[in-house]
């Protein structure tokens, strides 16, 4: 933690960055995103196991970008987000500097290549509980799965916290907000919720960095991250490519191989 504070001080003093996006103390034991712009606030930065939110969401926010060059306290998923955002031309190397939290220390990663190298050494398995849940769901009958999601999505109020918290949902105008035609219903009734979450997962297939921030953001506790995890795994399994692995990869869903192998087209 001290290492991080002194690193932040160093970067801000030298003017290398204008803001350090990191975690600070929040309500009770919560951690909240903070934006350190003054050297004397560097001590507010906190690093511990409660820092689980992927802060990369802020890297594409106009208000934050307006502050100037950004340093970001990065957990592994944040590093992947940076690469994916870079691959999607949403981020330039000169805009951002990652302060990776590895083995309790801080590593400054100033280039996408350096981040890519670091990411390659980090195991990318999703949490055990999440994998178990996905396995459990895949083992169910389709009727059981339908019932499961109907119950879970029944609580959805379409607050869009999942979308808003996702680092990859940076679109200025989301398809949910387009109404000519109104493709996905606005209201959070059963079909509106199902279609929304299906579209969200589909739009993240091949781009999801599996941070789980969407699921954590859901106020009513719907495991929406399982949908994007599953879509991401589907892409990985079939096309051997995963979101957030490199700043140079093409988006798996906007390309193809003539020999893509499927089993269901007659």
């Amino acid at each position, binding site marked *: 933690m001290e290492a991080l504070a002194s690193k932040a001080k160093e970067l801000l003093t030298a003017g290398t960055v204008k803001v350090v996006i990191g975690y600070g103390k*929040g*309500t*009770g034991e*919560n*951690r*909240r*995103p*903070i*934006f350190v712009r003054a050297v004397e606030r560097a001590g507010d930065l906190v690093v511990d196991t409660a820092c689980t*939110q992927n802060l990369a*969401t*802020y890297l594409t926010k106009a*208000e*934050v970008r307006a502050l100037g060059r950004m340093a970001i306290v990065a957990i592994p998923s944040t590093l992947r987000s940076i690469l994916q955002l870079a691959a999607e031309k949403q981020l330039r190397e000169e805009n951002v500097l990652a302060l990776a939290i590895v083995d309790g220390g801080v590593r400054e990663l100033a280039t996408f290549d350096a981040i890519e190298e670091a990411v390659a050494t980090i195991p990318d398995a999703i949490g055990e509980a999440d994998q178990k849940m996905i396995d459990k769901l895949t083992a169910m009958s389709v009727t059981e799965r339908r019932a499961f999601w109907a119950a879970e999505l029944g*609580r959805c*109020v*379409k*607050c*869009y*916290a999942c*979308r*808003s*918290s996702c680092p990859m949902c940076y679109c200025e105008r989301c398809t949910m*907000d387009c109404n000519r035609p*109104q493709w996905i*219903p*606005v*209201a*959070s*009734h059963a079909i*509106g919720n199902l279609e929304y979450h299906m579209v969200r997962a589909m739009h993240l297939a091949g781009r999801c960095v599996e941070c789980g*921030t969407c699921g*954590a*953001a859901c*106020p*009513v*506790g719907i495991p929406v991250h399982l949908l994007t995890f599953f879509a991401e795994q589907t892409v990985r399994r079939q096309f051997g490519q995963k979101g957030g692995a490199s700043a140079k990869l093409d988006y798996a869903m906007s390309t193809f191989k003539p020999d893509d192998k499927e089993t269901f087209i007659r």
Partner: protein
Amino acid sequence: MSERYTITEASVGTLLQALTSSGQRVLGPKLVAGRIEIAEIRTLADVLQNGQSVVSAKGVVFPKVERLLKYRFDGKNIALEDVEPQAQPTILLGLRPCEARAFHALDVVFNWDSKDKFFNTRMANTTVVGLTCTQADESCFCTSLGSRPDDTQGSDILLSPLKAGGFVAEVLTDKGKALVALAKGILQPPPIRPDVIPPATVAPAFDAKNLQQKLAAKFDSPLWAEQSLRCLGCGACAFVCPTCVCFDIQDEADTKQGQRLRAWDSCGMRIFTLHASGHNPRDKQSQRWRQRVYHKFAYYPERLGTLGCVGCGKCSRACPVDMNLKQHLAQAASQG
């Protein structure tokens, strides 16, 4: 002077049975899969004495999606069909006093000028049995808004838990009396010196009147941009809120028929005020955050004579980035 009764733990079950068999739905804060939801209360064990539901009970009177109108396409003609809200008689049992007070803030909007029959029908069919809070958390701030954990406002009956088990029931309104009438023989006279569990201690964080005065001069303060820098612009705060009343109206139709629906909406979302032309009167998140604060703490009192907030803290607990309303308001009230 309100009537008082004692209700023992054992008789709560009998009461629940009496209510259910009279065709009423009993809902209240209940632990469901590790979350507190407003759900059906079947037994005493379901009645949760402490903790706040994630989403408020406002959906009972203002559902997240509700039908306002139906129509059929008939050649060039349209056949309109009026809609009557299907409001099942509902008892909200064990509702927190802050939430009980919230119905007033909804009522002033739905009825300040024209009358909204959808809200009114549902409200008329709802009886609120409040329950004094004996625990609070760091997001609670009812006392900063001139209320307290055992506030009777908004409840038809207020229950206060007794140390020895059971509750003292204070009957406050005609709806409350009607409910008591259903429970004849179940209720007992109150103890002479009721030994209730003391209400929760909630230290005031600011003074609402003072805040309102401060807001008058703070509209252009950089504070709002600073506070909202981490705001994601989602609607979690508004959708869990017991007083947030902003809504959207949406048509859904096929080639034969259609319906007009009302759905919850949030001023924190960018498209809330976005014109079709692309012009947006509140284009920045800081403006939208400021709108949320001002609407509840300045415009509501100025215009409708009541605060648009009850201090329940649900928004703070639901926020994915820990926007703690109490802290932010205290900050606004303490500066300059």
